[in-house]
């Protein structure tokens, strides 16, 4: 059998047995352990043959009442060894066994009875009378069991039991005996060193400069579970994306989630009857509008661009633009609602900004759709920018997120031309994946905002990439907030892959 180091509890139990066999109850009191701990360690120890157990019967004794002859003797001694019968009868009472006590005292030759002036007198003859019985009563009052009564007093005890003055109660218990192997194990455990360092031990170490031994422990034993606090995986990827953008010289912009439809749609040259603007696809805030929005300044330019192209040379969408439609408040459907405002704010100056934020779609939730998700969008405003620069930025951006190739396919967005769908090669899965859109803002978008330089723009969802990183199939799991998953999930950075 392989020797495993003794557990501290086992060690305590063995130590309590070093001086001889012991019963369970006394092991508990002498070891200072809980009954359960003792019971379990006895079972381990006996399975390792370090102790043997035998079942023994122990007898508890309970003194029901003091023997009357002792009261009789005590009363006699209080009278200086001499007392009238009447006083003794009075002191004990007939009902408390005066007669029986008197009889025993006489037959044991403890006393003599004489006739006196006032009646019979009792004289104490034997000064040691009742000492033996008294000793037994003291033991009984201490609660000793039968095994604790000396052989010489066993007869007296039997008499008390017979007289109903003492009750016997038999209980079965376990007696534990240390085996030679157990004694050896205990000895070697004691040689193995300290269980735990204490200030005293450490001060002796300081004094002597010598190391002390610590008891070897079972290092394969399980430790309690611990969960460090963790960030949400979406937030971790957002942090990574922010770093990537920063490393490319982009500055972060933020904006409101609730936007006038003007910024979410109109400023992005999305006609007012475009299907994307339907209630079916977009969340509008009920009963609230941006009443400050009016057809003047930038808004008037945008309106004119919709209707007939304004100064851009475009045909426009050729319909009557309505300010009321632009005043509706919408939960932004894309962060282009924020980047287009940064385009206006640039005033045409060289600008590189990004936004990683939540967008909202009126969708039913299923394994690949959410009503709220995150997009990471960027724009560059600058002289001479073209489609090749857009490809360059996308290649670097997605490259730093772990994707080794970028290709563009034609696509369509109302606000960009050319519009490109971005395909990226993700080495981890060995496939080309669709990863968002990109393009050059149309003049119908930028000119009304006062920007005539080219603006390249792109964006993509964050959750899709995160699911690939985590190997997930169901997008809803990201927002279930199941603590089991949040605590146990793997790292998004894929350190497992690196190692």
């Amino acid at each position, binding site marked *: 059998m392989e020797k495993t180091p003794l557990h501290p509890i086992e060690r305590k139990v063995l130590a309590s047995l070093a001086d001889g066999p012991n019963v369970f109850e006394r092991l508990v009191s002498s070891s200072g352990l809980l009954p359960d701990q003792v019971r379990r360690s006895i079972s381990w120890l006996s399975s390792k043959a370090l102790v043997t157990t035998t079942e023994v019967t122990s007898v508890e004794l309970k003194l029901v009442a003091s023997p009357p002859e002792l009261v009789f003797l005590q009363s006699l001694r209080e009278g200086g060894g001499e007392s009238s019968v009447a006083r003794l009868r009075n002191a004990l009472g007939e009902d408390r066994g005066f007669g029986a006590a008197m009889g025993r005292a006489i037959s044991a030759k403890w006393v003599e009875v004489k006739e006196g002036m006032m009646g019979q007198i009792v004289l104490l003859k034997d000064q040691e009378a009742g000492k033996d019985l008294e000793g037994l009563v003291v033991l009984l009052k201490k609660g000793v069991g039968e095994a604790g009564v000396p052989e010489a007093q066993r007869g007296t005890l039997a008499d008390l039991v017979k007289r109903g003055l003492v009750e016997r109660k038999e209980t079965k218990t376990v007696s534990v005996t240390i085996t030679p192997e157990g004694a050896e194990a205990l000895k070697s455990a004691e040689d193995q060193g300290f269980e735990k360092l204490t200030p005293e031990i450490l001060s002796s170490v300081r004094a002597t400069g010598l190391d002390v031994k610590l008891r070897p422990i079972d290092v394969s034993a399980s430790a309690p579970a611990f969960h460090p606090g963790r960030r949400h995986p979406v937030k971790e990827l957002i942090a990574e994306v922010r770093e990537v953008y920063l490393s490319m010289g982009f500055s972060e912009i933020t904006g409101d989630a609730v936007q006038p439809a003007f910024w979410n749609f109109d400023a992005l040259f999305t006609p007012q009857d475009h299907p994307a603007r339907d209630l079916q696809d977009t969340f509008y805030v009920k009963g609230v509008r941006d009443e400050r929005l009016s057809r003047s300044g930038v808004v008037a330019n945008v309106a004119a661009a919709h209707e007939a192209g304004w100064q851009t040379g475009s045909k426009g969408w050729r319909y009557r633009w309505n300010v009321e439609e632009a005043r509706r408040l919408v939960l932004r459907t894309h962060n282009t609602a924020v980047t287009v405002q940064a385009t206006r704010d640039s005033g045409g100056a060289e600008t590189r900004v990004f936004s990683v934020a*939540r967008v909202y779609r009126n969708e039913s939730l299923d394994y690949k759709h959410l009503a709220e998700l995150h997009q990471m969008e960027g724009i560059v405003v600058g002289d001479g920018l073209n489609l090749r620069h857009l490809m360059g930025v996308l290649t670097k951006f997605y490259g730093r997120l772990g994707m080794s190739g970028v290709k563009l396919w034609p696509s369509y967005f109302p606000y960009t031309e050319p519009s490109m769908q971005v395909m990226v090669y993700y080495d981890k899965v060995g496939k080309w994946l669709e990863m968002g859109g990109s393009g050059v803002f149309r003049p119908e978008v930028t000119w009304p905002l006062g920007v005539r330089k080219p603006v390249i723009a792109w964006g993509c969802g964050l959750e899709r990439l995160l699911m690939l990183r985590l190997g997930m199939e169901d997008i809803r799991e990201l927002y279930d907030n199941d603590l089991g998953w*949040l605590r146990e999930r793997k790292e998004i950075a894929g350190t497992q892959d690196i190692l």
Partner: protein
Amino acid sequence: MERLTGLPKDKILDRLPYLGLDIEGTDKESVRIEYNPNRPDYSTDYGIARAMRGLVGTELGVKQYHAAAGKEQVLADKSLAKVRPFIACAVARKLTLDEETIRQLISMQEDLHNGIGRKRRKVAIGLHDLLPITFPVYYSAKDAKFAFTPLGSEEQMTIEEILQTTETGQAYGHILADTRAYPMLYDSKGVVLSFPPIINGLKTKVETSTRDLFVDITSTDARLGDEALAIVCSALADAGGALETVTVSYGKKKVVTPQLEPSRMKFDGELAQAVTGLSLTKKETRDALRRSRLDLDPKGFAVIPSYRVDILHQVDLAEEVVIGYGLDKMTATYPPSGDAGKFDPHASFLEGLCLTMAEAGFDETMSFDLVDGASLYGNFRRSSDSRLEVDNPRTAEHSLLRDSLLPSLMAVLGRNTKNEYPQRVFEAGKVFARGGSGVTEGVSIAALSAHSSSSFTEAKMYLEALVKKHLGELADTRPASHWAFAEGRCAEALIRGTPLGYLGEVKPSALAAFGLDVPVCGFELDLSKRSKPQG
């Protein structure tokens, strides 16, 4: 497609994305694709094949479609001037319509209805067997009692009945909700061709035996009607039909349709070069445009076929150049580096708070900004008077903008009762309220701790640590009332007298409402003054 393009399947699959077509799925017989709404001419295989032949170079330039002068006439009167004033028509003869071709035509019709037609509101298309029609055809208003046998029925129905009982009547009847003049297209013998934009008549139904087709397109915008008709006619011609014009008379004014002449737009080569980053010769540019099935005439005008309804501006031509040239031949170049970037300081501040909470052993959760009424209001027994609702949400679970993160965190705990305790969670995010221009957005961070001995003191311990680290000051607490916390176990946190948020033990009725068997304590801090709203 293989027949229409003369290309093998793998080549077709390889090139489809370069036309802007998304391959959704493939099987032995077919490829399911999705096209973008700017190219309604891709609504049939004919349209896609036309573009594909250009891209691979087997057929270049503008494909000319011609409609022979026909003799058929449609008479439109003023009765529909305020409802659906315009009608454009065409005839296509000598077609061979198999099941597949009919399926293509119906699918094109549906796509045009939904796209250009804006769910039939602006444009509706009818395809008819020409044979049973006796010209001239009339386009005029009828009242609700007018009856005919619509497609899908065997008996006559009144307009009223059609609007109330048929599927399309219920789906599109709202378009005619404001009028009693119902558009009707019928022939000289009273045979009804169509009740636009709801349903066609039964008598002119198109079958595989149909040889000659009559097309009607009614609209609220004549331009859109003409564009839709050009797309339909191009597809019918590619399907082998011989096109003929139809004369539509609006009183004395006569309009001959379809109009299939290409349009012209002055081509700005410099702009195309600036947008694409390509340096192409004039010939290369023209070749690229011809691959995109456009052309460049000797006077420097781009020639645009009538079915291309998406060219609004020079930049649209630039895109045609790049598609024709081949996006896969483009090379990337990184723009000259600019200044160093910087993070939004408010976002970074909030990120720092989140890191501290995680370091303190709290798990970060992320919940939706749109929540349900029970978790936001009902479970806390508080008034929903100042609620912010969204219109027409798909589910009630996402119908209200939250004004606090505590309900979301309680819902998280309620869903996690099977997981190990203690549970400590936090969330940082936007909160919404009425005000200002309608809605004001704030930023808040909230944390909850759930376990058998959680207490006010624990909440205060974490709050104080967080505030001291990030705001550099100690927070005071004073007794307060808050809808989430129990009376007597709730405090307001302040910094030098300025309110910062609330902390406390969550009130027992809320614990019960969220199904929790353990006490929960926590806090929510309003960071709006310290951190601007962030994603």
